[in-house]
């Protein structure tokens, strides 16, 4: 309860700040708008995160390749790469099932940007890593299990 309240206050404060910055012309409206919808990041479960991302029942796809180690020795630094072979890929999100915040990153790929991103995530424990891809307006998903020797979230 208390945590929720704090989150709510922080979110409200953050949006206010962004609106102010946008009004002052410090940041572009595009950036402010992108920052406004943080709902996927407030989800505590994978299912809620998918709903918040607008992907209720994504279709499994073998055209999405997740590059990640089978065993990550350090959960604080797990390299993850996602490549999508789906035509019209416009968004790639990386999710970690067992993390407190399942959505690690949500990439928007404009026309001309290749459907291939790499980053490094934290993992609390052994979990499935999901790559959610939006291609031509439709959602697809792939998963890969990563075991973790030492968790990296606490």
């Amino acid at each position, binding site marked *: 309860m208390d945590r929720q309240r704090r989150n709510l206050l922080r979110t409200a404060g953050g949006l206010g700040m962004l609106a102010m910055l946008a009004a002052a012309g410090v*940041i572009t409206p595009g950036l402010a708008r992108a920052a406004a919808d943080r709902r996927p990041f407030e989800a505590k479960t994978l299912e809620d995160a998918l709903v918040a991302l607008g992907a209720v029942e994504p279709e499994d796809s073998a055209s999405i390749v997740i590059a990640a180690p089978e065993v990550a020795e350090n959960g604080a630094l797990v390299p993850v790469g996602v490549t999508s072979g789906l035509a019209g890929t416009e968004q790639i999100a990386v999710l970690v099932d067992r993390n407190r915040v399942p959505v690690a990153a949500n*990439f928007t790929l404009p026309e001309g940007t290749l459907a291939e991103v790499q980053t490094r995530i934290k993992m609390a424990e052994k979990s499935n890593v999901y790559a959610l891809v939006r291609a031509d307006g439709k959602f697809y998903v792939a998963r890969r299990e990563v075991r973790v020797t030492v968790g990296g979230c606490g």
Partner: protein
Amino acid sequence: MTQPTRIRAASKDGITEVRILMAHPMETGLRKDSSGQLVPSHYITDLTVQHAGRVVLSAQLSASIAANPYVAFKFKGGAKGDRLTVAWIDSHGAKRSDEADIG
């Protein structure tokens, strides 16, 4: 005070590969410091990369991204000497923008 973002970009055969390393603690809010106090959450929420005034990548991030976030991607176009701009905003409202030329 925030530290500069390290940006490496190389153009080859009409494709520019960009590698970005942002300096940020990416605190989850779950970690305790040496005195047992919880360290408040503090992480980059938004990343935007522009090439010649056009957005080539935008991303929302969470504290599930590792400290000192690394992001790599590729886009069509871009030539040696072109300017790239990498901007981020964090959960405290801090922001930073850095530039680099494609090599």
